[in-house]
């Protein structure tokens, strides 16, 4: 008896030793990763919130100013303009970037030829560095000898000022962004379309449903989940728009200043006011956080 007990105790001790060893080893393996997350993700999150209540002037240490940064933001007319522009951009980007890929995907799913070509073509712009796309479109948009006006004039239409007029600047930015990004959504829709069971269409056809009725009553309902996911992804991504206004219309143009451009401007151009920029980031975070939470909830329940 005593021998067995001693043996058990011995093996339990060995197990414990092994467990401790494994834990130490595991944390050794994770040390670099945890350090990177701590330094560049977790700590900045806390610091960002703290910063939004501080005045940072690089002469003295940052000091507490309470809600002053937020008050200053609300008093800045540009703050409201930036939000308005961002919402307009996101809205327009949804009209184009959300519905067009859906239409393209449904169409491509029906085509039996050149499948590889269509996929490559639609996704190629997504691969280009965004700055390349934006600078290329800068030449296309040129009101003097740009390609777009040449084409418009060629078919007898008047040219446009594109990015250089306040009435068309925003839509010009949305067009670039849509051209560059719609391939991603298109391919995700296409993947979803291919997982729709063929029997559903078959049954609908036997019941005498026309192509439009099948689209309306089979395809669209089957895509509902991915449509909702993409809607949230699109909102989160497009509300952070930066490179298009930054490069095409500049950071000082009130027609196109967006939330991200204004954050950049507060922090890195004239103002150098990191507290103000952080306060604006916190507000953006709160807005996007709501969409992120919805998104997470949606994908969780699906899992």
């Amino acid at each position: 008896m005593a021998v067995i007990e001693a043996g058990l105790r011995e093996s339990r001790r060995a197990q414990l030793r092994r467990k401790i060893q494994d834990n130490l080893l595991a944390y050794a393996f994770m040390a670099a990763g945890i350090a990177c997350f701590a330094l560049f993700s977790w700590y900045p999150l806390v610091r960002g919130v703290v910063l939004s209540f501080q005045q940072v002037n690089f002469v003295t240490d940052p000091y507490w100013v309470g809600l002053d940064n937020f008050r200053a933001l609300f008093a800045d007319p540009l703050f409201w303009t930036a939000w308005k522009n961002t919402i307009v951009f996101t809205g327009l980007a949804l009209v184009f970037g959300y519905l067009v890929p859906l239409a393209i995907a449904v169409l491509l799913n029906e085509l039996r030829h050149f499948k590889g070509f269509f996929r490559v073509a639609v996704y190629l712009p997504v691969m280009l560095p965004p700055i390349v796309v934006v600078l290329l479109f800068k030449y296309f948009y040129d009101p003097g000898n740009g390609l777009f006006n040449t084409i418009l004039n060629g078919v007898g239409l008047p040219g446009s000022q594109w990015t250089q007029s306040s009435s068309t600047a925003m839509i010009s930015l949305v067009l670039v962004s849509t051209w560059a990004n719609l391939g991603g959504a298109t391919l995700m829709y296409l993947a979803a379309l291919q997982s729709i069971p063929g029997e559903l269409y078959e049954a609908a056809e036997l019941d005498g449903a026309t192509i439009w009725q099948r689209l309306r009553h089979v395809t669209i309902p089957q895509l509902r989940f991915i449509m909702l996911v993409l809607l949230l992804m699109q909102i989160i991504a497009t509300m952070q728009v930066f490179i298009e206004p930054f490069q095409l219309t500049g950071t000082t143009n009130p027609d196109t200043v967006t939330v991200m451009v204004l954050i950049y401007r507060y922090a890195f151009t004239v103002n150098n006011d990191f507290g103000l920029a952080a306060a604006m980031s916190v507000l953006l975070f709160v807005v996007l956080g709501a969409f992120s939470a919805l998104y997470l909830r949606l994908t969780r329940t699906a899992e």
Partner: protein
Amino acid sequence: MTITAPSRPPLPKLADPAPARRRPRPAGDHGAGRTLISDTELRRTRGKVVYFSVLTVVTILFSLVFLFPLYWMVTGAVKEPAEFALTPPTFIPETFEPQNYALAWDRMNIARYFGNTVFYAVGGWLIQLVVDVGVAYALSKLRPIFGKLVLGLMLASLMLPAAALLIPAYLTVADVPIFGVNLLNTPWALWLPAAANAFNIYVLKRFFDQIPNDLLDSASLDGAGRLRVLWHIVLPLSRPVLGVVSIFAVIGIWKDFLWPLLVLQDTEVQTISVALSRLSNTSQVPPTEMMAGLVIASIPMIIIFLIFQRSIIGGLSAGSMKG
């Protein structure tokens, strides 16, 4: 850290990170290959006419919309500046000056920026792999206490829009707490934040989870340590997922703009994207040379895409998408 276009993976479909790109489509009407319009409908004369006209229109439209701008860029670069400025523009270059590419490479210093970007991409890729594989392996196979908490905290960072961290992350890089070093204008400013990639860790962990523990246990009975097991069993089995993670790591770093714009302000160390933006804003580069610069900046991405099309499109359908 991808600042400009955060990757937002829908979590559900990740179980197999690289599914086959297309399903085999059975020849008949029946079964999974069936789509909105049936083959019978297409076989009718009217169906055929409509189908082939739609196919032609879509092919032409896709070529014009998605490929023509690239053609314009490549051919614009070989025109003479005078021809480039013509109204209306010429669609087939009448002058041919391929040396514009060489001029851009030398005069705009594209060679340096291209080299910088390759260096950042390769280094960032290696560091991302080492760091993220370490975390994923420990969480999946060693199962330490608080492992779930650590994973949860890492995944929570996927909820953070990159925009929210821009300012504090910049200040952190400028003066790293505890270590007290300034990483601005060093490659580490790109590499370390990129290594904190929760999406990679999640994908890798899910893949490692599928590797049977018996396999690893029998290896340890033969006397292999945890590191040997990782190197000789887990990693070779994980080739496909490592491939997808690698491709997306390189693409992410190559395409990133806002973060390098902030942390690499010294012109000597900039990426090609940041340098092109700066040159376009400040200097009087001839447009033809600028076009050549744009083409050079795109070539690596286009080559990667043409080679790894399947994994990229497959990985995309599996869930990760750039903004």
